[in-house]
């Protein structure tokens, strides 16, 4: 899965994705972190350009400062290094629900062109699914209540679909204005960071369009990895390749987490 550019780069597309995802987090932001790819990116951001990033995990930690990647959402290191440890009901009721969190950082098993997320079932029949996924967890309310949502997910025709089989977490619903109609107070997914590039909702339609390509990736490659007729932003830009410092920090984090 090494990204191929003219000169073969010494980083994988997964590394590019994590680094691109880390870069979009601003210093001092309050970030509700899902485990896996989001946690990797958020911890990388805190170790590079955003030392004051406030990491919030649904297990009940505010301001965790782990010195390695947590192995799970409730890794002891998250509690031991937190500013405050609170109960799970309090996380959701006092901190997430009122809109105190700037960024909800989510993964997805399946994502559609309006940024709706499915982590529940693959297949049309909920009672007899093709694949039973883990389910909602904290995601529906993270997607509803954070000021904005960043999704980080590997891109493929299987995962990027025209319409998700099950709406676990609402992105932009069936298009512009749906969030307001549903009473969802956050802005929803404003960025989808993949191993190929970055998608953003079109300001007119809220449909996700390709707005940024990672180094060495071509538009056609992204379109082939997308299950709908992907539009490309007129302001399409290029992701800068990872710096040595970013790569070294990411690798050290992952190594320490083993």
């Amino acid at each position, binding site marked *: 899965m090494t990204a191929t550019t003219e000169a073969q780069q010494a980083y994988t597309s997964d590394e590019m994705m994590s680094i691109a995802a880390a870069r979009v987090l601003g210093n001092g932001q309050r970030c509700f972190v899902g*485990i*896996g790819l989001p946690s990797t990116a958020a911890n990388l951001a805190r170790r590079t350009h955003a030392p004051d990033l406030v990491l919030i995990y*649904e*297990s*009940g*930690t505010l301001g965790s400062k782990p010195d390695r990647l947590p*192995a*799970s*959402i*409730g*890794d*002891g290191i*998250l*509690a*031991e290094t937190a500013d405050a*440890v*609170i*109960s*799970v*009901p309090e*996380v*959701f*009721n006092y901190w*997430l*629900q009122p809109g105190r969190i700037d960024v909800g950082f989510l993964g997805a098993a399946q994502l559609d062109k309006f940024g709706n997320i499915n982590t*529940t079932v693959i297949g049309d029949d*909920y009672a*007899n*699914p093709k694949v*039973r*996924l*883990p*389910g*909602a*967890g*904290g*995601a*529906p*309310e993270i997607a*509803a*209540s954070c000021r904005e949502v960043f999704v980080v997910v590997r891109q493929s025709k299987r995962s990027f679909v025209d319409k998700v089989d*099950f*709406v*676990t*977490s*609402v992105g932009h*619903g069936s298009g512009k204005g*749906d*969030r307001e109609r*549903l*009473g*969802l*107070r956050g802005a929803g997914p404003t960025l989808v960071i993949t191993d190929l590039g970055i998608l953003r909702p079109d300001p007119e339609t809220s449909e996700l369009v390709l707005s940024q390509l990672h180094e060495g990736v071509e538009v056609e490659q992204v379109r082939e990895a997308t299950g709908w007729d992907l539009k490309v932003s007129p302001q399409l830009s290029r992701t800068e390749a990872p710096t040595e410092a970013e790569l070294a920090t990411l690798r050290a984090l992952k190594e320490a987490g083993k």
Partner: protein
Amino acid sequence: MAEIVSLAEGVGRLVHDGDVVALEGFTHLIPHAAGQEIIRQRRRDLTLVRMTPDIVYDQLIGAGCARKLIFSWGGNPGVGSLHRFRDAVQNGWPVPLEIEEHSHAGMANRYVAGASGLPFAVLRGYSGTDLPKHTDTIKQITCPFTGEQLAAVPALNPDVSIIHAQRADRAGNVQIWGLVGVQKEAVLAAKRSLVTVEEVVDELEPVAGQTILPSWAVTCVAEVPHGAHPSYAQGYYDRDNAYYEHWDSIGRKRDSFEDWLRAKVFDMEVTEK
């Protein structure tokens, strides 16, 4: 006041066939030993409740103890799927498993309502998702002051809730620290409760961030060292991350699971006698 009992006695007295049973512990302090004792005592037709039915419920479901699962996230955290859970949902093996599916926020609030003696809880949740189509315990409610529409979920009041904690004193007061999850609410919401602890001590030295469940809010306490393994008990032992990976290979196939069940659960019964 809580009685101090053995694990076998606690499960024997408090968990009955057909009960609604909650085992809580959010990554930290998962009451694995108690879950395996329920398997060993061959309880059936349980309605299992848990926000994150991870390995502990994969085991109970695979062993055929459950007829229904009420939950919000069912996976092997950091590893992947729960194969016994999937096998029960998709193939009805070893018995069919009915599911009632919520979000974390909904489940947490259902416990809060249960602990508060209220019939329901109100939250901003579920709006626009497909969950209400399949879960009839999600309704709408109107704010009597603003007219706003919000979600309502019914209280959870398990017949018995089981949690694991670091320690208890001899009077049965229970002390927990580190990630406290939803355990206090689960115990207070339940009709009966069993708390397994790493150790019973003479005095509970105060610990920063502690939660105390007074003895009179708990039915039984059982001393079960390492009772959370492969989960962890802050101050006692770390999470056994390798075991979570290892579980994937056990749970993936019916026969490897049944081998594990025989060797690690039922044969332990003989050993204990």
